[in-house]
């Protein structure tokens, strides 16, 4: 680990932060290009593996940058990559949310809130679809998803219990 690497980490991830319109996953190809082909911080196989690990771990999926930062620059690199990935985009959200709060009673805000609701529900359904395809689900997993959806939608059982039960079912090798 050296200062040059840390500066490269800082510059790469803070620029990816601003470029990641539509979510962190949109800059994965660019991240791969720079971290694997450009800086040789990790191999192709390692990139694919850390992607899978970061998707499965709890918390925001963008923590793939923590793992890349760790490989490139140890603990300091990991923390730096994580912060660099969040600050620039976070500042922009801060500015937008201030404007939004200011426009509380404007008709434009009312129209956006009402009109975006069905679009957001459609996008959430799209992400459920993409998640399910990415996890490469077989019919047992779809069955488990269906059963859990029915329980989540119709009962008030704490969802954490259901996730734990589904994890247990997976652990036993039943899906």
């Amino acid at each position, binding site marked *: 680990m050296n200062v040059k690497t840390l500066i490269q980490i800082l510059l790469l991830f803070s620029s990816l932060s601003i470029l990641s319109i539509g979510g962190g996953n949109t800059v994965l190809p660019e991240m791969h290009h720079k971290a694997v082909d450009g800086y040789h911080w990790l191999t192709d196989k390692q990139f694919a593996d850390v992607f899978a690990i970061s998707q499965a771990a709890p918390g925001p999926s963008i923590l793939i940058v*923590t793992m890349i930062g760790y490989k490139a620059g140890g603990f300091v690199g990991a923390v730096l990559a994580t912060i660099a990935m969040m600050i620039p985009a976070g500042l922009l959200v801060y500015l937008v949310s201030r404007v939004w709060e200011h426009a509380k009673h404007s008709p434009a805000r009312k129209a956006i809130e009402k*009109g975006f609701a069905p679009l957001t529900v459609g996008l*959430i359904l799209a992400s459920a*679809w993409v998640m399910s395809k990415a996890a490469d*689900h077989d019919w047992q997993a779809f069955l488990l998803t269906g059963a859990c959806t029915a329980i989540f939608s119709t009962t008030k059982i704490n*969802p954490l219990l259901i996730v734990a039960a589904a*994890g247990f*079912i997976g652990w036993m*090798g039943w*899906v």
Partner: protein
Amino acid sequence: MSEKPSLFDLALTFNHIALASFGGGLSAWSREVVVVEKKWMEDEEFLSAVTMCRILPGANQVNLAVFVGVKFRGIPGALAAVFGLTLVPVLLVLALSYFYFQFHEVPALKGILKGAAAAAVAMTLSMVVKTGRKCLGGLIPVLLFLAIFLMNGIARWPLLACLSLLAPLAVAWGWPKEKKP
């Protein structure tokens, strides 16, 4: 909403959301906690915030934490929410990185993850069911919902392309009608 959450509340709540989302489904968990459990926001406000956070650059869930934190406590609130959302996951991911780069594999979690991921998809689907019941009354919202699902989910068009087509229609539909005197 009863009263403004403290910085500690914000950090704790987003930590809870992050840890609950083992296997995925962070959006659904955010709604479950922020809207249903804590009643910090109404569904409409929450859903529009979710889409704004998707349009803006940055990780969607980090953005949402910033958005909710700023709403109640300004910049310190945003920092508290993001800190809560990321601290434990970052430590966990660091531990996993250590294992992975030392031993080239992570201790057998594959089966558990497969089950948990199926439940996370279910959690996300149930968010569709619960929020859809409220905002999909009528032909136009159902058409908007189906159109963006087909474009973004099935055809995999980029988010900005889908929204540049559909957002103007959605906003025109949602514009408050002027009340007749």
